[in-house]
């Protein structure tokens, strides 16, 4: 899975009907050192993530392995909201800091 920060949301009323009632969030990919990358994905939210949340998202066919995205044209799903992570014991990101 990749780390990203939710930077916005997508509203699309005219779209493939298979995407109806799915929450679409814009996620900016972050490196493991928490540096933002120049890379964005639109991901389906499955854990009630919101803007400014640091999240973990799965891509590819794994993104269809949720009740909401089963058999739908989706290749990125947010599957966790990140609290913190460390690298070799050194804290890199802390949600409540």
């Amino acid at each position, binding site marked *: *899975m990749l780390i990203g920060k939710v930077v916005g949301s997508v509203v699309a009323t005219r779209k493939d009907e298979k995407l109806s009632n799915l929450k679409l969030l814009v996620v900016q990919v972050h*490196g*493991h*050192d928490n540096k933002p990358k120049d890379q964005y994905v639109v991901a389906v939210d499955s854990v009630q993530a919101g803007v400014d949340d640091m999240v*973990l998202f799965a891509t590819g066919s794994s*993104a269809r392995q949720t009740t909401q995205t089963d058999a739908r044209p989706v290749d990125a799903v947010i599957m966790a*909201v*990140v609290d913190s992570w460390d690298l*070799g014991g050194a804290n890199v990101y802390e949600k409540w800091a």
Partner: protein
Amino acid sequence: MYLARVIGRMVATQRYPGLEGVALQLIQPLDESGAPMGDALVAAATVSTGPGDLVHWVDGREAALACPETYVPVDAAILGFVEQADVLGRDLAAPGNAWEQPRSAATEPH
């Protein structure tokens, strides 16, 4: 499947149902010479690995099959420790033969 070095741990309590109890660890994939290959990523840790371990892992939707609940949105999973990996005449598991995270600059970009 690929080789990787476990470089960190992640805490994420708000997660997709079915992923309870699944540890999340940051890994740096390694190539056949033991050098870093591509960007680090987060994998489900299905065995008791930890930072510093040389592991083998799987990506794609097969990764979900390594989790307790198999119908989960997981696209990378650590499968096990590597005790010995003879590649091109070198044992990558021997100390110093495969990349390790620099001790001091743990957050240095790779």
